[in-house]
């Protein structure tokens, strides 16, 4: 068990270092950091001085080490566009993205799992076919198109819900939340559905196929043969076993929810980190791009670790392996 955790942590560190290398290479070689920081009138001598100050004359491996150790302390350099520390800008934008991702994930799980279970248990029912058709459309519609359609229906036509922004936010220390105001809650509905729809169909299809697989296993047949109540067989025995792969994949999906937020945030002008990243890509603001990449990698690794822990809690075969 402890060996397992240590192995996982080492793997995570390797992932971060690899992504860090990519981020560093981008940071160092895409555009000249010095040119980005100074004006046209700066003399060559001043540029060289700055280059020295920034450590850009040192061997690359030393520069990489500086980059990584600075990043570990939350220092990602200065944004070319905003002329402010990247960590500060990212810190302001992150709560909006995380709230959106969280609400979307809850929506995806709360709708996806029951729909998946239902379609697995009642394979040929009308409702199952409707769910499956909707899921196919959900997978085929690009998420920006879903967002545009929702805006067209609920904002332009019905004028029920806002089409952009977060509504009013409340500051809780360094965290600003939109979940405590009426306008904030209203504003998050459409973006959350847009962002969560794809994940919902994914979870639904996954739960369905896993559940159908588990329903065919011997232990479910044996549970039925022992005369256990249908409800117990389906939800006690089958669903619990279904959840193991579902937890893994759903957990990993949370990382992609945050990345997919780039699109949703653009459609709804949601002031989060995804929108920030997109603007950075458009303006080749490399420090922000690099920092965003590292942040996603860190979140990914963190989620992976949480998923592993959950896995251990659910599955006794892993839990008892070491002991």
């Amino acid at each position, binding site marked *: 068990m402890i060996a397992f955790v240590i192995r996982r942590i080492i793997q995570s560190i390797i992932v971060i270092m690899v992504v860090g290398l990519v981020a560093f290479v981008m940071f160092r070689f895409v555009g000249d950091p010095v040119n980005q920081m100074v004006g046209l009138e700066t003399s060559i001598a001043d540029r060289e001085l700055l280059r020295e100050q920034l450590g850009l004359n040192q061997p690359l491996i030393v520069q990489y080490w500086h980059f990584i150790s600075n990043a570990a302390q939350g220092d990602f350099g200065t944004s070319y566009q905003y002329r402010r520390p990247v960590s500060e800008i990212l810190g302001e934008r992150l709560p909006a993205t995380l709230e959106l991702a969280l609400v979307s994930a809850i929506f995806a799980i709360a709708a996806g799992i029951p729909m998946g279970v239902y379609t697995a248990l009642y394979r040929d029912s009308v409702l199952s076919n409707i769910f499956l058709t909707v899921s196919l459309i959900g997978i085929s519609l690009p998420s920006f198109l879903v967002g545009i359609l929702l805006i067209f229906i609920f904002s332009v036509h019905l004028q029920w819900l806002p089409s952009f922004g977060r509504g009013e936010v409340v500051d809780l220390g360094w965290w600003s939340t939109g979940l405590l105001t009426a306008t904030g809650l209203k504003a998050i509905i459409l973006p959350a559905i847009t962002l969560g729809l794809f994940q919902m169909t994914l979870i639904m299809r996954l739960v369905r196929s896993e559940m159908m697989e588990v329903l065919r*296993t*011997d*232990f479910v*047949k*044996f*549970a*039925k*043969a*022992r*005369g*256990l*109540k*249908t409800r*117990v067989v389906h939800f*006690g*025995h089958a669903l*619990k*076993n279904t959840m193991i792969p579902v937890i893994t994949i759903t957990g990993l999906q949370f990382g992609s929810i945050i990345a997919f937020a780039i699109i949703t945030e653009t459609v709804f002008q949601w002031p989060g980190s995804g929108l920030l990243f997109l603007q950075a890509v458009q303006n080749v603001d490399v420090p922000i791009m690099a920092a965003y990449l590292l942040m996603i990698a860190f979140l990914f690794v963190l989620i992976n670790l949480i998923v592993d822990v959950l896995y251990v809690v*659910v*599955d*006794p*075969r892993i839990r*008892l392996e070491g002991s």
Partner: protein
Amino acid sequence: MSDVLLSVRDMVVDFPTRHGLLRAVDHVSFDLSRGEVLGLVGESGAGKSITGAAIIGLIEPPGHISGGTVHLDGSRIDNLGMEEMRRIRGKRVGMVFQDPLTSLNPLYTIAKQLIQTIRTHLDLTEKQARARAIGLLEEVGIPAADKRIDDYPHQFSGGMRQRVVIALALCAGPELIIADEPTTALDVSVQSQIIDVLKRMCAEHGTAVILITHDMGVIAEAADRVAVLYSGRIAEIGPVREVIKQAKHPYTKGLMRSIPTLTQTNDRLTQIPGTMPRITDRPEGCAFAPRCGHVMDICRSQQPATRSVGNCEVACHLETEGGAS
């Protein structure tokens, strides 16, 4: 015949497929007395497992029983609703599956699975159910049962798991156990132990057994009577000794010759030529005719009726035509 526990009459099981209806079980009839062990033997695909599953209503859809009756202790059970059938499963008819490695839910302790089953069928408290479960585990020969009951399935060996499966099948005190290839997936060294446990438990509890297997050795060791299935039909049924010593159906004879025994050291083991027809292209008349060494014209056109010969029943034209061998 008041001690007849189970009576299966003309049971037919069909599976609709895109090539048409597959008749997996074709007019199978047999009786089973209380406490009796009936072996069902045959090659894979002969319909043994489906017969077993059909009795307790566990045929996978779209398969279904499309003819015949099943009576348990005098009352008909093949036409019961799902909920009534569920109450019979586990409570009156238990089942043991082939592979103990996959028969148990890996995420629950043995205790949870036993107690859940016991309390589904018997009106006991958690504590009483646990005591009963520990008692059962001791009976099937699990050492330190009061401790091991809280272990997970993966912490047991294959043989031990099959003992747990037997305990689970017996835990509500059923009158009949259907054991579907209970030893096939096990090491040879533990196979006879498991057969012993099954035999002993059922004898002690007065439970009848339908023992489904392709292994005549297991039948010889454990069964009182044996039914030989060929291509979904019963070829021959009778007391084990008689069927083994004086098989009447050419298929049974061939089957017996293919078993190695200590006394027949000189004889070569013989194989029955050919293979069992797939149920999609079962020939008209006797299904065994294409492989039979005694085949007559009538065999190819007319399906043989079942005749009583001594204590046995045989479906073969040789018996009706006066034994022209």
